[in-house]
């Protein structure tokens, strides 16, 4: 593909923003299509990342968008199962190992119109620590895929590559359950992404060390919070303070609470939003919640997408509403950055 090699050259020439610098997405692909990446993370395992990823993907596909869902849970890929697809022959492992040269060769049909899947690697031992070069190559390849939307189904935890893929996306979705373990990990995930994002901003490089210190919860300098960090930057690097504030405020994760049973479960989302505003200075968009729904595990046992298996369920309606909200509120971000 001559177009893609062309892009690579642009990148080497420095005209092309680094895929690691957040918020630089929406690059016109080789096919001339603008695309938007939705990443679904959340820190903990079993909070419904794969289910929500596949549901959002199906909802987008049903809305007539061309979607490619990518399973980035490199150690424990099972997005294909939630989509009702047999394990594909080509996976991301083949791309990272160089057995296939084009990412699109790993893409397989799902039987759902407009929706393709790129499955996660199976030989997880080597893949779990992919190098920066490989991440780079992958993200550029993603930008060259022929589709409107890419869904990243991220793995649990706060591994470097997970955070990198999360931050390389335009739409940062966080899913959590109304349970202490999940809430704790979600905060950890938000915190890690928050600092890592700031560290990826070239202009803020004079304070990267300071951010590093802040991330160490037991640092001897006593910098405990973003508030401390901002105070010190304001004092010692006053010229960077407004830039720092600007970057902090640009980070706008979106929150979905899954498996909601009671009203107070729903309220947790509001608490998280308020606390993140107060302690991180970020605006979280609380997109909505999904009711606890026993039809989901029935669907999983049938190895069918719950979204399609029970079209009239509350789950399907909620997912459609969330997708709708995302399209309405953020669709404009697709074209505004790169005219």
């Amino acid at each position, binding site marked *: 593909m001559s177009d893609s090699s062309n892009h690579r050259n642009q990148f080497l020439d420095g005209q092309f923003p680094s895929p690691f610098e957040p918020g630089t997405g929406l690059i016109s692909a080789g096919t001339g299509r603008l695309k938007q990446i939705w990443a679904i993370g959340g820190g903990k395992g079993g909070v419904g990342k794969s289910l929500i990823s596949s549901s959002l993907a199906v909802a987008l596909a049903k809305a007539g968008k061309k979607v490619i869902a990518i399973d980035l849970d490199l150690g424990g890929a099972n997005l294909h199962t939630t989509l009702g697809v047999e394990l594909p022959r080509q996976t991301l492992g083949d791309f990272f190992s160089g057995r296939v040269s084009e990412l699109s060769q790993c893409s397989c049909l799902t039987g759902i119109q407009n929706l393709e899947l790129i499955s996660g690697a199976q030989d997880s031992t080597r893949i779990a620590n992919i190098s920066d070069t490989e991440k780079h190559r992958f993200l550029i390849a993603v930008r060259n895929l022929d589709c409107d939307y890419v869904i990243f189904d991220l793995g649990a935890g706060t591994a470097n590559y997970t955070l990198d893929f999360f931050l390389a996306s335009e739409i940062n979705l966080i899913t959590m359950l*109304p349970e202490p373990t999940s809430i704790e990990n979600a905060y950890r995930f938000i915190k890690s992404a928050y600092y890592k994002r700031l560290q990826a901003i070239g202009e803020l490089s004079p304070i990267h060390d300071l951010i590093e210190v802040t991330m160490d919860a037991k640092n001897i300098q006593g910098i405990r919070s973003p508030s401390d960090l901002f*105070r010190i930057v304001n004092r010692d690097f006053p010229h960077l303070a407004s830039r720092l504030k600007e970057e902090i405020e640009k980070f706008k994760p979106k929150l979905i609470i899954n498996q909601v049973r009671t009203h107070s479960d729903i309220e*947790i*989302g*509001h608490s998280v939003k*308020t*606390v993140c505003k*107060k*302690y991180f*200075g970020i605006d979280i968009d609380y997109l909505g919640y999904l009711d606890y729904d026993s039809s989901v595990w029935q669907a999983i046992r049938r190895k069918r997408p719950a979204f399609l298996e029970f079209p009239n369920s509350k789950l399907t309606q909620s997912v459609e509403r969330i997708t709708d909200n995302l399209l309405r509120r953020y669709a404009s971000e697709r074209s505004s950055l790169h005219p």
Partner: protein
Amino acid sequence: MIFDQEVSHYTALDVPTDASPQEIKSAYLRAKHLYRKDNHGLYGMLDAEATEDALRKIEEAFQVLSNPELKSEYDAKSGVHSREAADLLVASATHRRSSQMDGKSKDPFQAGQDSLGSSDDLESLLNPPSTDFATPVPAVLNTPKSMAPEAKTEVKNVPNASSFDFGRGMMIRKVRETKRISLEDMSFQTKISKNYLTSIEEEDYSKLPAPVFVRGFIMQIAKILKLDGATLASQYIEHLKKTASS
């Protein structure tokens, strides 16, 4: 907010420095609700110590800011109204309101920007802020239950100042109740007796003193309700006189 340069009782409650007693009270209740012990939503973010610390600061802040004497003492000490330059670098939303006020008018109530006639103002006035989510409703004393719900539609239909032919007492009551100010609170803040307040709201003109005093009362009430005192008072007196002469 992390961008605040100074920590104060106002930042503890996350209210602007010109917040009204009611705003302070609801911010306090919201904060108490957020930091309650069984709020799972904080788990992993704030440990027990941090939560207690936050609660303590909130209590401290409310102790001071809810007491008019302590509040003015605190304001004077911390130079609340004269601090313009402090947040030039990062003017957070919290401070924007206070810095918008120029140095001349120290009393936010005297700004008089709330025009009584504008239906927009009335509407926004009668709609509780959306951030009220999950805030326990503060007790409203002496509220006839039937009145609150219709408040919005009725007041919206208030005709222009020139053509009205009914008193302003009911409107005062509706605005007061919408703002969740009890008669006791109003009496405490205006130093007007509850009997007079009731008579004013019920337009029981026979129990009120001479119009010149009533005018003063209405100005006081308007201040608390953040309404345009001059307009409200003249409208009230006009109806009072009309009723008396007929």
